[in-house]
């Protein structure tokens, strides 16, 4: 059973997390992540000014004040970038620190002169105090979240275009400037309503973390928006519950920490784009490249040997030590390690492509067959690229053995005919040898 207060906070935080997640996706995609941070910091003096004007705590007035100074800050930032030699990063830093500093000075002035009772209000805008959320605040957050969702649903296609390529959108006749402004407005409003709960310092995290985490899971904008909103909502809910459970865990920072954990997991373990799967694929890619080059070197050496002896078939047992002293290496730099790395050789032996021969290595039956495939693919690609130099994109990911999958059969057979005529087509009878799954 959850207490009523906790339920309100939980609902408010989740809705806030969902809307920052949704809107934050666009901020991250438009490379505006830190603009949100500047905006949040610049909003803080607005809260103080509103308090100074009314001399009491009034949520709507403070939020309007926050929105105003936030917008002034962002406009100054854009003006600085356009009209002076101040670069974007410095402009963000200047606005962020000066406005926030001004807010601090104002809030302390207020604290020092008015009665102690009004003090509590302002500090909560720095680090946030989600635990004190009232029902009115919940309705406000719910309203803004619903509005954000509605606007994003209605203008999904337009936002997608602007987020992807604003210049193109403008050329196509979309009001890209106004759409961009609308997006900025959505970001500003979500940031401002989040201020009382999460605080100026950390609200940017709620914009960035879910969106950046969602980016790891998908390449599609629609999916990303959903995942990001869901991540935002769940991490906000989890953070709220955690901080309600344990004493001395402030709600805002705890929400951010949960979000950070979610991000870390995504960054490491996401299926396709995660760091783990990326580095595994990278390693496999390099090894495969190395392996293919090793096989090709051996095959071509064997081929050269056959030509010298006039034999009919490449010998499967051409020891590698001879290969490294081929005349092709004469006149090359002695310091270069033209020979294959021992680790690569050992791996190839384990995989069954090579056999250990006295004084070196040789191709196994299976290895010879695969090497022929590698060499065939290599030569077909080189020929194809020479013929159709403007089609380098067809190469795709670097894998010479994938030639039959990436080029139309007609093209392949035409290229094969050419190689055959030149006597350079390796004999590849039968099935392509099984390669370890990669």
């Amino acid at each position, binding site marked *: 059973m959850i207490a009523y207060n906790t339920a309100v906070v939980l609902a408010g935080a989740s809705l806030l997390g969902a809307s920052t997640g949704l809107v934050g996706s666009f901020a991250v995609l438009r490379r505006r992540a830190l603009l949100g941070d500047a905006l949040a910091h610049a909003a803080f003096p607005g809260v103080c000014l509103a308090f100074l004007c009314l001399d009491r705590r009034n949520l709507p007035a403070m939020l309007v004040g926050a929105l105003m100074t936030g917008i002034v800050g962002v406009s100054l930032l854009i003006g600085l970038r356009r009209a002076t030699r101040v670069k974007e990063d410095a402009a963000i*830093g200047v606005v962020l*620190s000066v406005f926030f500093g001004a807010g601090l*000075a104002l809030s302390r002035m207020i604290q020092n002169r008015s009665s102690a009772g009004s003090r509590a209000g302002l500090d909560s805008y720095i680090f946030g105090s989600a635990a004190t959320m009232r029902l009115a605040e919940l309705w406000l957050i719910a309203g803004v979240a619903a509005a954000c969702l509605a606007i994003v649903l209605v203008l999904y296609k337009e936002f997608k275009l602007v987020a992807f390529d604003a210049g193109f959108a403008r050329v196509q006749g979309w009001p890209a400037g106004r759409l961009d402004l609308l997006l900025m407005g959505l970001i500003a409003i979500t940031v401002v309503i989040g201020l009382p709960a999460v605080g100026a310092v950390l609200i940017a995290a709620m914009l960035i*973390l879910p969106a950046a985490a969602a980016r790891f899971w998908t390449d599609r904008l629609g999916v990303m928006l959903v995942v990001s909103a869901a991540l935002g909502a769940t991490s906000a809910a989890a953070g709220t519950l955690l901080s309600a459970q344990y004493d001395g865990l402030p709600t805002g*920072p705890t929400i951010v*920490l949960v979000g950070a954990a979610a991000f870390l997991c995504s960054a490491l373990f996401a299926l396709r784009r995660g760091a783990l799967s990326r580095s595994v694929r990278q390693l496999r890619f390099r090894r495969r490249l190395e392996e293919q080059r090793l096989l090709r070197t051996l095959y071509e050496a064997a081929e050269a040997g056959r030509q010298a002896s006039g034999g009919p078939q490449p010998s499967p047992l051409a020891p590698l030590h001879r290969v490294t002293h081929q005349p092709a290496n004469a006149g090359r730099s002695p310091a270069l390690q033209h020979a294959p790395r021992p680790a690569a050789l050992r791996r190839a032996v384990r995989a069954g492509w090579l056999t250990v021969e006295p004084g070196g290595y040789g191709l196994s039956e299976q290895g010879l067959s695969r090497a022929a495939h590698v060499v065939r693919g290599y030569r077909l690609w080189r020929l194809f690229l020479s013929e159709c130099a403007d089609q380098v994109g067809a190469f795709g990911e670097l894998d010479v053995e994938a030639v039959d999958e990436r080029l139309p059969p007609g093209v392949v057979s035409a290229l094969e005919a050419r190689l055959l005529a030149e006597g350079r087509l390796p004999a590849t009878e039968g099935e392509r040898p099984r390669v370890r799954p990669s």
Partner: protein
Amino acid sequence: MNDFDFAAVDWGQAFWTIAAAALSSVSCALLGCYLVLRRMSLLGDAISHAILPGIAVAFWFGGTTAALPMFLGAVAVGLLTAALTETLHRAGNVPEDAAMGVVFTSLFALGVVMIARLSAGRIDLDPDCVLYGRIEHVLLETRTVLGREIPLAMFPLGTTLLATALFIGACWKELKIASFDPALATAMGLSAGVVHYLLMGMVAVASVAAFDSVGSVIVVAMLIVPAAAAHLLADRLGPMLAWAAGIAFLSAVLGYLGAVYFNTVVAGMMAIVVGLEFTLAVLLAPRHGLVSRAWHRLDLALRIVSEDIIARLYRAEEGRAEEGRAEESHLAGPSIGQPAGSGGFTAWLGLRRLLRRGDVKRAPDRSLRLTEQGRLAAQSLVRSHRLWEAYLGEHFDLPLDHLHEPAERVEHFIGPQLQERLASELARPGVDPHGKEIPPSDHKS
């Protein structure tokens, strides 16, 4: 605050507070110059936030903020921020700004949570302290050196400034080239990556040192704002560093006095002061300020307008001389000199300038006449115009009626040197392609 009385200021307190603020600000500002030039100011922001968990951990063990473990812990976390940001950006394909945002907000949140847990227990380090620092309490802990009481905070701050100065001095050339052209630096063997991490390490050190006394807000402000202002004011690295240091120092002094006057925190007031200084720089910087740029634009517009006026008058005189008519021209009022696209106001200003300089005078019937001095200027201008037309006619296959317009635009920017080169290249032509006489370069010939 209205009954503020300077006599009531405790000047001993003021001196040491300003000294502490100045020492920390100046070290931050010096390092900040390189951050701003490398477009990495936000990494400075990130590091100054991210050191918080490092400080908290050290606090946990040491229980005091002046301890060496705090320095080491914070520097380690600072470097970690830089490395993590780079890793996320490079290997994770996260946009750089988002990567930075992720790393520093997460670490900062971690720091806040840790400090909140700590302060819930026994140790007095509340989150406010993180933002404002404890500069007001700088005199609480002192140590007597050579018979004088010196605040304890001065030692780490002074050491940091010294270390910063030494670092910049020793790596002057490395920092310069790695900031300007990192690829070349690496290609030369002065690895830009090594310089980058050295710089980030120093930023972390300066942040930690400043953190305790002035808080994270001022660290960010002092890392970025003085440097950004100095970049507008200086065109050399040395002067830029000097400007940044000066701006930071001034903001420490004025920030303290302002805080006393308005009864508020020193940190916030210093941010306001440095923001004002930055605004002044944006507006008034000699070459890159908005005012000087606007003035230069206006000046150029006026020059073009007034040159157009005298050229018109010159041509009108020429026309009269050719036709042998003795009547006065009816050129009057500012409208005559109005080039396409510029308003009547600029033309009026331009005419005022000509009259004031004595290039043009009003005849009794209020029509405009060139003075001798004005005629010389006009002659040179018309010479430029017609030489350019002749040059265009010679080298480009343009119809006759297409020559005037480019010449009208270019004539204002052809100095005597270029005139001479054009003339000699064209073998000193007498007339332009329209058959008009090209006036000689000065009245004597």
